[in-house]
């Protein structure tokens, strides 16, 4: 049987893993290569690396790290952050990424989704979305969740899949960093509208949050950062717990 996936996310800046709460107050956590090895041993099903650097020099540092990780860890790697052009796709794929996650780049230029899907295949293109309720409507946010685009987030998800996005990362700004559980209302709304894998992000605080997540139809993976980085939840323990709850996981 196909399994539900547990995915730790590593935000990388200046060659180090960082994680903020509600996207503010970023703190240094650890070395990305060591962290990746640790998660691989723990049973992570996939790793996501977000490059949150700005300068060209730091971008080089990021791809060096990616290359090192991909030379030692043989599970799927998704890379996001600063992906705006097909050249950006090319740059990270050549360094060992399997999938490329596009977020603000697709807001600036929605055609990038279709162009990348055509060149590298749908399976390679992950559309990542930061979503927040504004006056009761799900809105798409840009720039790491700081800017309301005014775009209807549910329609954006549907359009993205129709253009060729092979997976969606749905990050709820409302629940991110709060550790009160995933945004199931938002996830259900998206799962009802698309037929590609959905990776839920934002809000995991305890193991029960994951079992509740996977009881909802159409959710394929749970992504989290700080609870794994700070070892509040060990991935191995989480997977054993999920298996006991009747959720199919890779152990």
């Amino acid at each position, binding site marked *: *049987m*196909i*399994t539900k*996936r547990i995915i730790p996310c590593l935000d990388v800046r200046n060659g180090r893993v960082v994680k903020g709460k509600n996207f503010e107050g970023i703190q240094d956590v650890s070395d990305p290569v060591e962290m990746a090895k640790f998660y*691989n041993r723990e049973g992570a*099903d996939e790793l996501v690396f977000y490059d949150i650097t700005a300068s060209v020099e730091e971008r080089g540092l990021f791809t060096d790290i990616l290359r090192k990780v*991909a*030379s*030692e860890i*043989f*599970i*799927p790697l998704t890379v996001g952050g600063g992906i705006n052009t097909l050249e950006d796709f090319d740059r990270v*794929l*050549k*360094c*060992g990424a*399997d999938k490329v996650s596009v977020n603000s780049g697709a807001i600036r230029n929605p055609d990038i989704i279709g162009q990348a899907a055509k060149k590298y*295949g*749908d*399976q390679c293109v992950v559309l990542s979305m930061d979503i927040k309720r504004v006056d009761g409507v799900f809105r798409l946010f840009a720039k790491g969740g700081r800017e309301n685009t005014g775009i209807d987030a549910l329609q954006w998800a549907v359009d993205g899949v129709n253009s060729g996005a*092979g*997976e969606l990362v749905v990050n709820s700004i409302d629940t991110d960093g709060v550790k009160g559980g995933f945004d199931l209302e938002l996830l259900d709304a998206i799962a009802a509208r698309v*037929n*590609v*894998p959905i990776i839920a992000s934002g809000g995991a605080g305890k193991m029960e949050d994951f079992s509740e997540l996977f009881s909802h*139809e159409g959710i*394929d*993976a749970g992504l989290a950062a700080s609870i794994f980085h700070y070892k509040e939840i060990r991935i191995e323990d989480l997977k054993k717990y999920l298996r006991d709850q009747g959720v199919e996981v*890779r152990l």
Partner: protein
Amino acid sequence: MIAVIDYGVGNLFSLTASLKYLGADVKVTGEKEEIEAADRIILPGVGAFADAKEKLDQTGLVETILEQTADGKPLLGICLGMQLLFDESHEYGVHKGLGLIKGKIASIDEDLKKAGIAGLKVPHIGWNSLQFEKDEPLFRYNKPGDYVYYVHSFYGTDCEESTIATSEYGVTITGAVRSGKVYGTQFHPEKSGEAGLKMLKAFMEV
């Protein structure tokens, strides 16, 4: 030396990195002489069947692959590389494959619909458990139930005599095939963690 056939299809970073990690001497090549000199051949591939087959034809290496495998040289096709080994594919039309594995490539989506199964997403993406008979050389270091990583929308059918491993996804997915020393895996061993590394190690020893 293991020759990884370079015909302009897919990302070879992880495949070459995993083989090097296992201590193999790897050459990514489109040269006939290097493939002839190799101890083993790997045919990788992602994307659409027809496009990949056309690119492979353009390299002029098909004949070399057929000669080398006829001489008993081990070959491993991965993902689309496995599908190319089949007689034919029904992915957007009917296309001829290399004919090294008897059977045809069919659509998972269509077969799920025919079977009346709803609620499964296509592509089949993610980790699925693999069932196999213990005495297969490729799985000598693995145990049945090991999880492997799949990403595909089409799959091998009518290939019972070559099937050596399967996974369940509404329909029975052909996970791996073998005919003589010609092997194919639908999943990506180079992305399947320890379980996949064990299979690549086993392939280096067949």
